[in-house]
């Protein structure tokens, strides 16, 4: 009960007017950071960090933490409405969220994104509250070989993201891997595929790739189809039906589990985790054929997962002082500014501070739900804006978003290149999502493989002898085999996976 008492104490701190005010400001700014395509939680926290210097540590960290989890709420808005993922973690949300918007169901999509974010975020904080120290210890036991297994497991998702042609899905994933390899190899310092170009030495940034593949390519498609607006008929209901909410309960719970536990692991980004949650949901769903066409669970799962990931990420940060994501690394520097060293001693020496921050996260999630749900109607109306206004604005925001990555034009050119490539890929029916997945996962895979090999003096033995690694690898192989079997052997499952009755014959 000691934890519960400390939490109650934390609430008494977090509920003071000053702390409430800064949790609210952080939530609003976080939502804005998520909505704006040119700025992510990492840069958002970094920009606002100096502004908090006039504050005492508790409200300052409360505000910065709220920006982080608030960005996850906001990231889904543009993903659903205009097919621009505000954050990397919202890439998967575009698959079904944008389709829902095109069917006049932007309201329910936005609402379920907010509700799922709230449910998973809050459950994640419960996990953080009661299990932070033991879970952090477990996370530390997971080494490079386990990461290698985990990435292989995540890569098995490519099969189910491949659409009708497995070969084209794999080609897309392979091209993503190739793009991920461009640039300087941080271990050896050698340049790969840079063709003597200094801009390529820094690598191809995935934000620019995503902006191109999703936003620019989508505008080109809509121009071709002479789309009057994303959805022109009167909007259907703004909120999901009770039945839909009930159907999403499982998705939210599974997304919480996946997001929270993988979020604890350093290096597992919300972007990769949301893919895993989406794939899991597609596999367990009875309506697999609806995924990619506007399945509400296809929005609930990734949005829940990325919020649970943010809560999970605080476990190693607070309990061990290890930031698992770049955004939390910037937040860690915020702790440092105030002379606070996250880790086991922080819970002992600064219990009031730690528990006030944790309690504020419960409050912040409620605030974000209250902020986001009434805005659903307003945002949803955006889909009716004429496309001759929306299209140029999407292109302008794409330009700003790509430019903001490193404040250079190379990333803008990258976004343009991938925009045209995405348009062509759509024409020849090559799916773009596997490319994004491997672009995220291949650097993790390479790094885990190298570390594992160096741990065993160059021998790959560790990759096949550690129990957890083996479990992940076997699960990855089994999932791939099941997906392939479903595609080519069982017409009924194939029909579900492909979503096309004709193909299944």
């Amino acid at each position, binding site marked *: 009960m000691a934890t519960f008492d400390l939490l109650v104490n934390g609430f008494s701190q977090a509920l003071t007017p000053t702390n409430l005010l800064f949790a609210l400001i952080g939530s609003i700014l976080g939502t804005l950071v998520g909505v704006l395509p040119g700025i992510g939680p990492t840069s958002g926290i970094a920009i606002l960090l100096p502004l908090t210097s006039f504050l005492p540590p508790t409200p300052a960290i409360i505000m910065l933490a709220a920006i982080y989890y608030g960005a996850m709420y906001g990231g889904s808005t543009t993903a659903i409405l205009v097919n621009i993922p505000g954050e990397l973690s919202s890439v998967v949300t575009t698959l079904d969220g944008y389709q829902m918007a095109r069917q006049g169901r932007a309201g329910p999509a936005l609402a379920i994104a907010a509700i799922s974010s709230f449910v998973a975020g809050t459950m994640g904080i419960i996990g953080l509250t009661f299990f932070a120290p033991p879970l952090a210890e477990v996370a530390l036991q997971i080494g490079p070989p386990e990461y290698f297994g985990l990435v292989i497991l995540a890569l098995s998702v490519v099969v189910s993201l491949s659409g009708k042609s497995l*070969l084209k899905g794999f080609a897309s994933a*392979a091209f993503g891997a*190739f793009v991920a390899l461009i640039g300087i*190899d941080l271990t050896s310092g050698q340049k790969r*595929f840079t063709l003597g170009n200094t801009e390529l030495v820094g690598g191809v940034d995935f934000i620019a790739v995503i902006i191109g593949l999703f936003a620019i390519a989508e505008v080109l498609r809509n121009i071709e189809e002479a789309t009057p607006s994303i959805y022109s008929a009167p909007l259907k209901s703004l909120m999901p039906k009770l039945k839909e909410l009930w159907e999403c309960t499982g998705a939210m719970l599974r997304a919480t589990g996946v997001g929270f536990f993988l979020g604890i692991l350093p290096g597992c980004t919300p972007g990769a985790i949301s893919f895993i949650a989406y794939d899991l949901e597609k596999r367990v769903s009875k309506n697999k054929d609806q995924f990619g066409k506007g399945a509400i669970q296809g929005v609930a799962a990734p949005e829940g997962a990325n919020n649970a990931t943010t809560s999970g990420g605080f476990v190693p940060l607070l309990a061990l002082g290890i930031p698992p994501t770049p955004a939390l690394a910037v937040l860690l520097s915020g702790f440092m500014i105030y002379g606070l060293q996250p880790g086991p001693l922080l819970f002992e020496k600064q219990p009031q501070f730690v528990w006030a921050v944790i309690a504020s996260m419960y409050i912040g999630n409620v605030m974000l739900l209250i902020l986001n749900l009434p805005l659903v109607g307003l945002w949803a109306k955006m889909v009716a804006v004429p496309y*001759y206004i929306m299209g140029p604005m999407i292109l*302008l925001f794409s330009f700003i978003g790509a430019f903001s990555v490193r404040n250079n*034009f190379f990333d803008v050119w990258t976004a*343009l290149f991938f*925009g045209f490539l995405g348009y062509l890929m759509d024409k020849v029916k090559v799916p773009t999502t596997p490319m994004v997945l491997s672009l995220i996962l291949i650097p993790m895979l390479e790094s885990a493989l190298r570390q594992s090999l160096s741990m065993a003096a160059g021998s790959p033995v560790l990759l096949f002898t550690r129990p957890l690694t083996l479990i992940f690898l076997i699960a990855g192989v089994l999932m791939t085999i099941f997906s392939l079997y479903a595609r080519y052997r069982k017409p009924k499952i194939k029909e579900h996976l492909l979503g096309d009755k004709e193909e299944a014959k």
Partner: protein
Amino acid sequence: MSVADRILGIILLLLALVCLVEGIRVWDGMGGTGFMPVIMGVVFGTLSLGFLVSRSQNRESPPIPWPTKGNWQKIGFISLSLVLYTLLVPWIGYLIGTTLFLIGLVRAMGRVRWGYGLIFGLVATGFTYIIFKIWLNMPFPVGFLGV
């Protein structure tokens, strides 16, 4: 096998060669810098074979839904605008470049009046300038006029 599949196969084969050459160039042992490029070379090679020797050659591939002539012109104009904007904005600056870009796009997409296009261009440019340049301090290009 469709023409698109054949072209994809050839592109993948070229990528395989690029990866293998680069992998061998930077090879420094198992799991080193060249390891992943070599692996990718093998993967691309296998995939290219899949496309070039695909069983689907007996099946009729659906035609690629290319745009009509009118749509090609529209897409061409938008694409050219994007390229020109990216090329010219460092020279003419964000404010002027973006206003002109938006006026051009809104007129091409919606065939709206010049006045409407001008107001839209000015308002949208001003709005993004306030948020990103003034508030978030993003270093937009200023161009030869210094704005």
